């Protein structure tokens, strides 16, 4: 595992303490995690070889700071709070990559102020809705149903990062609260109007999708491509919704290729 350090920042008029994991060297790459909270996975390790990876924890999901979620009420607050974070990290216009819920946030960052995001990578991103491919409410799905949507191989050992261990109260609390904090900006349907704003995205965009994604089916990759002016798609085989956990090498390679100067 790459050596990570943590930066603690005071944002939002001092009301939100942000925790950002930082690793690697090279051009800046901001990584926004899924609704399950930050998992420092093999994908981030691989990316840290070529980039300075900044991985903020979604407000409320940092250990011992559940109330950091309280001052931010909607997507607009969340986006502005991230621009403040960029300012404090000295990032004028970093590359931003987001997975699942984090993908939705990344797209919002690139759409609201196109000058703050130089390149955009969306990995199995939430944020859009199609009536012909409704997105299941994964936050309340029994594991036996959810594993089929989330993992191409339901026995993937990485499943332990998102499915809580019912024997371990700390795991139940951590995962449940992380989902609750993501839900603040995505409940009950993860469409908060992003579709109206995607035309503003100026950053060249890579849309990476697990071919077997059962939650946000690959038609959503097509939908993002249709809506974002300068985008291309890369499908990854043997991956469903949890591509960063399922196919780290293929994902990191695609991202490295795309971000090459």
């Amino acid at each position: 595992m790459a050596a990570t350090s943590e930066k603690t920042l005071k944002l939002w008029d001092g009301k939100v303490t942000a925790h950002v994991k930082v690793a690697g060297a090279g051009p800046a790459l901001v990584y926004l995690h899924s609704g399950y909270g930050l998992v420092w996975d093999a994908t981030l390790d691989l990316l840290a070889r070529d980039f300075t990876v900044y991985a903020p924890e979604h407000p409320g999901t940092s250990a011992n700071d559940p109330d950091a979620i309280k001052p931010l009420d909607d997507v607009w607050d969340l986006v502005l709070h991230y621009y403040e974070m960029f300012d404090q990290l000295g990032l004028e216009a970093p590359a931003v990559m987001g997975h699942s819920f984090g993908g939705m946030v990344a797209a919002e960052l690139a759409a609201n102020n196109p000058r703050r995001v130089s390149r955009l990578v969306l990995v199995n991103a939430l944020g859009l809705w199609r009536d012909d491919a409704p997105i299941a409410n994964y936050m309340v799905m029994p594991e036996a149903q959810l594993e089929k949507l989330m993992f191409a191989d339901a026995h993937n050992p990485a499943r332990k990062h998102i499915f809580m261990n019912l024997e371990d109260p700390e795991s139940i609390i951590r995962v449940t609260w992380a989902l609750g904090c993501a839900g603040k900006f995505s409940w009950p349907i993860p469409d908060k109007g992003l579709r109206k704003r995607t035309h503003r995205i100026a950053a060249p965009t890579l849309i990476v999708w697990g071919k077997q994604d059962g939650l946000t089916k690959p038609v959503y990759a097509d939908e993002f491509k249709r809506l974002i002016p300068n985008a291309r798609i890369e499908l990854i085989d043997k991956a469903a919704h949890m591509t960063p956990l399922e196919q780290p090498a293929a994902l990191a390679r695609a991202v490295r290729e795309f971000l090459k100067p």
Partner: protein
Amino acid sequence: MKISMFHLMPYRELPADFEKRYQSVWVDPPFWELADPAKVGQYYNWTLDELIYGAKAGMDGICVNEHHQNAYGFMPSPNLMGSVLARATNGLDCAVVQMGATLPTTIPPIRVAEEYGMLDCISGGRLVAGMPLGTPMDANLCYGITPIEHRERYYEAHDLIMKAWKSREIFAWNGKYFKLPMVNLWPRPIQQPHPPVWIPGSGSLSTWDFAAKHDHCYCFLSYYGNNLGKRVMDGFWEFVDKTGLDPNPYRAGFLQLVVVAETDAKAEREYYPHIRYFYDKCLHILNEYQMVPGNQDYRSLANSVKNLLPMQTDLINSIGNWKYKDFIDNQFVIAGSPATVRDQLMQAVKKLRVGNLMVLLQIGSMPHELTLKNIDLFAREVLPHFRNVWDEDGWENKWWPKALQGKVNADRVAALARSEARAGK
């Protein structure tokens, strides 16, 4: 004390293998596979008839509540039911207890203040205003309220309703969730400044805090009986003591399942299948739906995962193997002859220190005729023995409609019967 009859309005004919074929009784039971609108119409009418029958039999109050997409209780608008009940019970000293319209999902919440005002006016000031937070199933899953905002939205709705009732001037409400430029209720309730407020809860500290802060009646609505209820109510009374409030038993409400027959043996024979139906089918709720992420604030979540959940899970897992005797021994249901029920219910009331008891007399698949019998036996053989509980301590039921203070519905019912007999009806 006061004893009110509660009704859930369950679908009474779910298939025998319901709990094997479907994952939940709530949120996603497919209507067209399971139900028939004509039967539903029959159930609504039976429900109303049973509650009105209870009122005429002498019950102190009659209660309905709100649930959505739920085969064990589907009065999505409790106030539609309450409206019929208020009208049909005029002339009786019976409270109309709405337990009630769910605050955070009624938008704007002054709709609750308006409808409760209507019910209070129609009933001549007999309304008890229940103010439920709503379950995660109802509010988050069926009605789409963002879980992490659920409770905050509830508090705001409550404050808005109370202000709308108390304020004699028109005011603007600039809240976080609700913005109303000119609040000016028509109608106003007969009970001034407002009807008594009851807060249904499931044992969470934040609800105790809330009820105490506003001096409302706290009602622990559980289907798991008074043994488990005692653990929660002991905590509640401890909390009341620490907060410096008086230990007035009317500060607390509790829901208990009760069935009465001529003998203990007959009670088992007649009611056990319906008890089974209730616990097997009506409470067949997907765990994930009850644990919607964000619904509980972080501290309550940590508390329930570490303390409550293990206990509840063990218990719920064991119910499948229970026999009739286990339901009785664990006091999930108080059942038996009038003497048995009187004895056990009296112990329960005393140990919980409850002044405003609610009893569920129609349980699961219980048919109409049997329900009427249960109501009849309860009202004649059990209820009268509870009238003077707490009297010797001199407690006043501040959470009961003013128009009914000092009156007993059963006395009114008896007087009406005598005058009808004299008139030769």
